[in-house]
């Protein structure tokens, strides 16, 4: 990464009533990056965000900001702002006063406050909404107010806690693009928490996949998707076929009852591995031409493609294909060397 580290978490341990939530988490976040914490609920992603925001005191470990220890700094002394889940807008204030809230605490220059607030409202597309009560706004509009309220303070880092969770699908897609655009335009580090893998892949420069209070993998969306480091990541990021296999030697792996050429190397001879094949990477061919043959159990129309469940031996494959086969039909499957991802098998 060309940018310097802005937030650094070192060995963070958090308990809630003796229940471990984070167990020694370490992570560096670079300046001007869009970082997403992705994981199922209860994985510790929101807690990590709240440690950075200052709302959760870690039991041990340090939080560094620009190299300075801010572990014991209260939230109001940190150069970060948060967009809360369900927004946490102040219902007794109108849109303008909500956005102006942070500025008013620091400055009495009414003119400067006014111009900054109006400018920020324009940036988020809420020009003309200043006098409205926040309770009369739609979900998407409230979301924009919450973002403006954080960004107007010019934080170095903006924390976003599942900010799009309450919106409907279409609006969510629009807001994803808009958030990305804002982040690039303002050159602020965004740390974004979500359980939606598609959202994470769409928006992020770096994705941090978390589970059980631990980081599973850090990488670009492409890396995470194409080269998952373990079965959890593979399974959580998109649908996958995960099979047990044996790595006979470099570039040769056996699974599903036959040998395949692959592009992986560096494993011990005959090492037990797990093989990941994405459903869209399987080519459907006539039965006699397939590397594997199976019987189609069912076919579901998914809009862009068909999802088929195919029984082969004692494994049921998921295949995404633009052409539908008939249930009960015998088909062949081909998997290219590039499409086979190999991970060491976990105990």
């Amino acid at each position: 990464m060309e940018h310097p580290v802005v937030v650094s978490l070192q060995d963070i341990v958090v308990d809630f009533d003796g229940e471990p939530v984070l167990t020694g988490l370490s992570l560096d976040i670079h300046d001007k990056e869009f970082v997403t914490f992705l994981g199922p609920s209860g994985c510790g992603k929101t807690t990590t965000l709240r440690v950075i925001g200052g709302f959760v005191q870690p039991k041990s470990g340090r939080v560094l900001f620009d190299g300075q220890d801010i572990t014991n700094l209260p939230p109001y002394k940190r150069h970060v702002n948060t967009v809360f889940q369900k927004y946490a807008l102040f219902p007794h204030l109108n849109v303008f006063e909500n956005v102006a809230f942070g500025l008013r605490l620091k400055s009495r220059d009414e003119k400067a406050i006014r111009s900054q607030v109006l400018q920020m409202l324009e940036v988020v597309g809420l020009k003309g909404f200043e006098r409205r009560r926040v309770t009369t706004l739609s979900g998407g509009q409230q979301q924009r107010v919450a973002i403006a309220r954080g960004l107007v303070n010019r934080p170095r880092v903006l924390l976003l806690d599942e900010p799009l969770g309450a919106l409907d699908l279409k609006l969510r897609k629009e807001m994803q693009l808009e958030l990305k655009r804002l982040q690039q335009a303002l050159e602020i580090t965004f740390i974004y928490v979500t359980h939606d893998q598609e959202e994470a892949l769409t928006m992020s420069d770096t994705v941090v996949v978390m589970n059980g209070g631990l980081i599973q993998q850090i990488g670009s969306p492409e890396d995470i998707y194409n080269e998952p480091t373990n079965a959890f990541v593979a399974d959580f990021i998109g649908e996958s076929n995960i099979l047990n296999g044996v790595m006979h030697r470099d570039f040769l792996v056996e699974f599903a009852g036959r040998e395949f050429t692959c592009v992986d190397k560096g494993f011990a001879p005959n090492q037990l591995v797990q093989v990941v094949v994405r459903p869209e990477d399987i080519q459907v061919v006539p039965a006699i031409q397939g590397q594997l043959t199976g019987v189609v159990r069912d076919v579901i129309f998914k809009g862009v493609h068909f999802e088929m469940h195919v029984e082969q031996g004692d494994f049921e494959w998921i295949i995404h294909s633009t052409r539908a086969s008939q249930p009960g039909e015998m088909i062949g499957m081909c998997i290219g060397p590039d499409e086979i991802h190999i991970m060491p098998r976990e105990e």
Partner: protein
Amino acid sequence: MMGKRRGSALMRAYLVLLFSFFYLPIVVLMAYSFNESKSRSNFTGFTFKWYESLFHNDMILSALGLSLALALISAVIATVVGTMAAIGISGMGRKSRLIINNVSYIPVVNPEIITGVSLMLLFVAWSGAAAWWNQNAPAFLRFFPEDVIGFPSLLIAHISFCLPYVIFNVAPKLRQMDVRLYEAALDLGCNHRQAFFKVVLPELAPAIFSAFLISLTYSIDDFIISYFTCGTLQTLPIAIYSMTRKKVSPEINALSTIMFLVILAIILISNLADSRRARYKAAKKEEV
């Protein structure tokens, strides 16, 4: 369908009867405030003279003054102490919260006469104890007031029975309030004190205000507890009571009429404001 229509006719008839039961006495009471003669059964002619004499009745006017002063002071104190308590209690552990809540329920469920009697005994005991102390203690320590029965005892009694209502009004609002609002304030640069005054207090304001109004009305309306703690003072309800015991004058009808109309006006105005706000909100929603 047939059954439903018959049911709704029955329901209407029943509700009409019920509401006549509620309002008949009040209407009669009000009508006789305009009666020329003192009779409670003959209507001999229309007059405003009872209203006139009401406003020259010193007993009623001073009782009204006392009631208003008492209600205002006790409601303010109860609201402040009660709101603080609601916040403090919400930060306590389950066990102490449960104990305090149960004690708070005592004056709510206990018959008022017992609350009144027990406070009266307390003030009597206090007077005795203070008198004893002031006789026996060294001169410079004789600062305990002996004569608390009167305004001080009334004030204490009214604050005591208003306090639980303040807590039961504010505490649920406090529980409902999104903790993230407070965190958002910290996040935007408030320290804990600022976050409380800029965000938490404005959020609680409607509940605090309605607690204040409830205290005000309970205090103005209270008869039984005041009756046991007032000594020789007369609040408005006590004055009314003494009027009903004496040879009755239609002034009391006039007073009822005025009080009813004032309350009606307050309720109508607040309801009108409410429904207008609701309509405004609905209109705004549609616009979006």
